[in-house]
């Protein structure tokens, strides 16, 4: 469904990603793993079109590399970004309303659905999103990203900076999304958890894919795990 070929990503003059290929088939959860600074978020940003990149990105058999960010989102891509980036100056409900900007039909039904899934968000619907805890903000970011009912969800570091108990809650949510047969590209540093949830995984380091395969094969590769955690 999503195919990335020979992707190079640039930040100013610096090339952060040096020509990678990856595929996310429909209905699968694909993990993109790697240490800090490996180029994971750059890859996500290139897919949504907010950074300069070269190479071919196609989605739903359409080449989207030349499209504007807004057009890509309209085409069915949605992102829950690194650092969550909820609109701190809007209420929880307004965040969800804005998240569903492209799908006005049945919006209130979807908002109700998310309040059901995350009761805490329902309780705080009129509270400013900036006052939520990190875990609540992450839930809001995921719910907001799904308000447009996307074809693919790009989940960038959902567990970053959260307490272990909250992290396992977030991974439960991802498991649930996977059970719903949603297509997900999951970017994570937490390899053990991400591998458990994914159908296929890519391992990114220094802007190159250094390994890929089924989670059960990659999970046993101690050299990769060492690189990821920095323990050698």
């Amino acid at each position, binding site marked *: 469904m999503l195919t990335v070929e020979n992707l190079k990503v640039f930040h100013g003059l610096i090339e952060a990603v040096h020509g990678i290929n990856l595929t996310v088939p429909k209905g699968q959860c694909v993990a993109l793993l790697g240490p800090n600074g490996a180029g994971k978020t750059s890859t996500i940003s290139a897919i949504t079109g907010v950074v300069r990149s070269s190479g071919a990105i196609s989605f739903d058999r359409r080449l989207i590399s030349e499209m504007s960010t807004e057009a890509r*989102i309209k085409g069915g891509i949605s992102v829950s970004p690194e*650092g969550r980036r909820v609109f*701190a100056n*809007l209420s929880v409900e*307004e965040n969800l309303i*804005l998240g569903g900007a492209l799908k006005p039909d049945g919006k209130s039904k979807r908002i109700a659905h998310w309040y059901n899934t995350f009761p805490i968000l329902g309780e705080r619907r009129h509270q400013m999103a900036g006052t939520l805890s990190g875990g609540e903000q992450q839930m809001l970011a995921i719910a907001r990203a799904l308000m447009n009912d996307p074809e693919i969800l790009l989940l960038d570091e959902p567990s970053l900076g959260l307490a272990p108990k909250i992290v396992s809650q977030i991974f439960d949510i991802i498991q649930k999304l996977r059970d719903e047969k949603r297509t997900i590209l999951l970017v994570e540093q937490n390899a053990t958890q991400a591998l458990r949830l994914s159908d296929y995984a890519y391992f990114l380091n220094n802007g190159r894919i250094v390994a890929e395969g089924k989670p059960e094969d990659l999970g046993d590769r101690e050299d990769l795990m060492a690189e990821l955690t920095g323990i050698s």
Partner: protein
Amino acid sequence: MEYVVQQIMNALAFGAEYALLALGLAIVFSIMGLVNFAHGEMIAVGGYTMVAVSALALQNPLIIIGAAILVAMIASVTLERVAFRPVRYADPTTGLLTAFGVSMILQNLFLLLVSPRPIAVTSLYFLEWSIELGTLRISSLQLFETIATVAVILLLMFFLKRTLLGIAMRAASLDFEMVRLSGVKANRVFAIAFMISGLLAGIACVFIMARRGSVDPHLGFDPVLKAFVACVVGGFGSLPGAVLGGFLLGAVEVAMLVMLPQSLGGMTDAFVFGIIAVLLIWRPDGILAPRTEKGDKQ
């Protein structure tokens, strides 16, 4: 008593004008970090539109007012498209210089194409008469200006709170890229911001023209300078701050006019800015400056 009410009306009317213009500056600044010094030229554009419409022998004041506001809005949106879009994501300084450039070009166009001299527009004089309430006598124009400003602020609040584009504009002041990542078109948000800004300038133009009765190429310079000060006092980028700053500036100005002895009459502005300087020592970011968010990893 009469005198006090009269001065309060003066302060409200001054403040309303500043608040309208300051809001126009703040709404553009909040989403794109641009101090639009060409905002004043939208007032002049409205004024010249009135001249043109009157010259066409359309003396119906509603047509004159409507045309002035409409043309100010169109001019503002056009400026965004032509001048500000290319520098949208550039450094704020680039935007500021662009705005100055646009302002100068427009003023010189008025000089060259119309006239350096003021042109009279008399068709709005009907807005000014005195209303007598018992022993009180107040100016209808001041009353209209205050009411119109309050109505516009309420409408703007409704727009920002209740409509999708309004919510998107508030969100854009914090994280524009994330708004685009929700699928809202950036171009649309910018166009609406400039349209509202032009609308506010157009409404201010009606009252400025009704009071002055003439338009010249530099009509917008003074009001926008005051509006800029109002924004600084209120906290740049904050819409409530712009309104508060506008009314506060109006009040301080009238207070100085009233309280300063005759011999210091020419120094009103100096005293006003002196007070503002002191205010800024107390609150360097302005009274209602948006607090910087302490978020997670950005």
